């Protein structure tokens, strides 16, 4: 056990599986969010389903753990890697040999973490610990999450922060997706190319999907 977790590759394994878990979560999260575009009742019912579904309830702490593991272990590895070249090169040209996101995963992760803190305090905290009005559909009382969320997205700088968050996420996924499989050894010369393509498409879908929602509501204020 210890020889596994003491090894850098063993620790990377933790970053990789937690990363893949978070990648899956993003797809579910986006799917629910897209109900926002379908209107108030559709979204509120979807949010209600997520908040009351026992399977989702179990996943919530797992998700928190996934985030924690991903952040703590990768931060640890990043710090360790900082010390491996005490004397820097006077001239180094990495632009042709590696991608910008691949070299800046920690910075991107940090930006996403800041976004996440803001995001959780805006929505998740309020939905979880009150402060959201209730609305009734067919005799069922549900939180009016729709009004809470769209109320924020019509503020231009809120919308901008959310679009920026989506951009950071895209860049993080651009490297992270392919990298997660590489670390698990699930890659070879052919699959490396395939995974890069799949990862690029996935990153774009996730980022565009999340970004389109605030843009949609903000645009709505101009059209009305």
């Amino acid at each position, binding site marked *: *056990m210890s*020889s*596994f977790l*003491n*090894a*850098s*590759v*063993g*620790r*990377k*394994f933790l970053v990789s599986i937690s990363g893949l878990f978070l990648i899956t979560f993003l797809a579910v999260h986006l799917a629910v969010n897209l109900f926002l575009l379908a209107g108030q009742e559709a979204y509120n019912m979807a949010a209600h389903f997520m908040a009351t579904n026992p399977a989702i309830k179990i996943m919530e702490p797992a998700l928190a753990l996934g985030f924690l593991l991903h952040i703590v272990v990768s931060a640890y*590895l990043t710090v*360790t*890697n900082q*010390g*491996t*070249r*005490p*004397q*820097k*090169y*006077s*001239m*180094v*040209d*990495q632009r*042709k*040999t*590696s*991608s910008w996101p*691949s*070299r800046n*995963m920690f910075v991107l992760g940090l930006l996403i973490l800041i976004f996440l803190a803001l995001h959780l305090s805006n929505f998740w905290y309020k939905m979880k610990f009150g402060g959201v009005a209730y609305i009734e559909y067919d005799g069922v009382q549900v939180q009016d999450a729709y009004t809470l969320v769209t109320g924020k997205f019509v503020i231009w700088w809120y919308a901008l922060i959310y679009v920026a968050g989506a951009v950071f996420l895209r860049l993080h996924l651009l*490297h992270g997706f*392919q*990298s997660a499989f*590489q*670390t*698990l*050894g*699930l*890659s*070879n*010369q052919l699959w*490396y190319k395939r995974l890069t393509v799949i990862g690029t498409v996935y990153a774009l879908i996730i980022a565009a999907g999340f970004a389109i929602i605030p843009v949609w509501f903000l645009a709505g204020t101009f059209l009305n």
Partner: protein
Amino acid sequence: MDIKLKIWRQEGPKSEGSFVDYNLTGVSKDMSFLEMLDFLNKKLIENGDDPVVFEHDCREGICGSCALFINGRPHGPDDLVTTCELRMTKFNDGDTIVIEPWRAKSFPVIKDLVADRHAFDKIMEAGGFISVNTGSAPEANSIPVPREKADEAFDAAVCIGCGACVAACKNSSAMLFVAAKVSHLALLPQGRAESGKRARAMLAKMDELGFGSCTNTGACEAECPKGISLAHIARLNREFLKEGFRS
């Protein structure tokens, strides 16, 4: 042609180094990069100065000793070549060439452009071998090896241990080197049996010696003079993980 050189000079392992500028006139395009340095050293010696110390041996891309970081890239601006295979045709009259040693905590500079790469030997000693006595050369067909496996093992075996992968990596990780060695042996029947244990042992040594961990940026593959592929790192990870919690 005339070349401006900025070369890292360092007295010894403990001393502070710095860049020294040299204007080298009369360089021929026909020279190899190392011949250009020989030419510089000849002039330095004639002037009673200390020649620049750099490593070289075979000068035909097979020994891996010529480790120079040239203009921001290991082995210089050309792809898939070692420093000794680099030609002065890649440079122009009036160019400035910055030459540094490999820089990594695990590769301390001994003098001028020479970095101590014994750490690679220590990684090899930790598991880069087959632990049974293989005796004299066996009859070629007694252990059949499928063609693709043999080819892939050979692709890994061409690693010359130059350390450009470490030099290029932002984390100074030795993953590509270790991957080449583990892959080479794991693909062949004689090495297969111990491959999980070998991956564990070599990686543990790599970590212990202060090399960084891999973040899959791919800089190593892009700079490796022998074109060792990232696919070998995936195999190394596989071998490591397959060993599970056994050791």
